[in-house]
């Protein structure tokens, strides 16, 4: 039922393009092929992608593939190399929005709520003046700001999960049915240009 709910939401968004990044249950034990066929056409690797929209650079990362025993989310060397190439040459003033399923900072390691090699990606993003990191996976809102990077995880449209460490496991949180809808939801991100004067940068002539 919740799948059709999501679909209703997605359709009602009235956008020309819908882009996806996979969650851990979208990539089966046999790999990402079925996901890529349906949701990941024109993406790279297991579904990573980037595009520009109204001056904002969007990057979709996949941190749910090829997970290591005892580890958390994983981007992998190939995807990190792609990200490096994707960001190279872009002015540091370009606003960047990154979306990936598992949080890109360690929300709670005991439940695997983090990405082992996220620091490698954050290093590549550190020079940009505005970076917004959008994640899902933990089915609740968590936020953090680190330097120029704002992290935000969204609610789920399926079921809520417990706050870190408040339950024996991260499994679905059972709540009274009248409370359920208040714990499900979607996140809208709006791009608002800052009102601060632009920084002035002097540079010498180069030949």
């Amino acid at each position: 039922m919740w799948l059709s709910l999501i679909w209703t939401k997605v359709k009602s968004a009235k956008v020309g393009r819908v882009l996806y990044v996979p969650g851990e249950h979208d990539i089966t034990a046999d790999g990402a092929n079925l996901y890529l066929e349906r949701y990941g056409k024109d993406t790279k690797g297991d579904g990573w992608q980037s595009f520009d929209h109204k001056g904002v650079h969007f990057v979709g990362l996949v941190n749910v593939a090829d997970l290591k025993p005892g580890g958390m989310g994983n981007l992998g060397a190939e995807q990190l190399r792609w990200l490096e190439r994707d960001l190279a040459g872009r002015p540091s003033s370009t606003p960047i929005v990154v979306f990936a399923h598992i949080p890109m900072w360690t929300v709670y390691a005991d439940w695997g709520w983090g990405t082992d090699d996220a620091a490698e990606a954050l290093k590549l993003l550190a020079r940009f003046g505005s970076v917004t990191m959008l994640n899902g996976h933990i089915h609740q809102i968590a936020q953090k700001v680190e330097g120029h990077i704002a992290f935000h995880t969204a609610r789920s449209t399926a079921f809520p999960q417990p706050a870190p460490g408040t339950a024996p496991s991260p499994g679905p949180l059972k709540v009274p049915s009248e409370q359920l809808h208040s714990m499900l939801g979607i996140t809208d991100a709006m791009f608002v240009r800052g009102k601060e004067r632009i920084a002035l940068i002097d540079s010498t002539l180069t030949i």
Partner: protein
Amino acid sequence: MIRSFRMLTFQGVTLAAAAFAMSAITFEARAGVPPQTAVVRIGNFTFSQQTLAVRAGTTVTFVNDDDIPHTVVAKDLTFKSKVLDTGDKFSFTFAKAGQFAYFCSLHPHMTGTIVVKA
């Protein structure tokens, strides 16, 4: 019914493979020794026994009691279940002695080890 049929088929295939690999197992089977079995249950995003010791030839069945799909995958990929929904099972026969670390490839913080004694 369909699920248990698949299970039996899988065990059959595994036993056949084990028979090729280890004649000792087929000898044991011929001698009428009942095959040894063990169960690891999956619940609360954990495997019920972190470490399970069994004798070589034991078939271990993993049962997903959780509300969330999980997998059972050997660290060295010698075995790999499909995605197990609630109530689904996966069996593997450990023919050789050794330590077999495994994890859930969807939630890799879930780990366990089967210790197989000769």
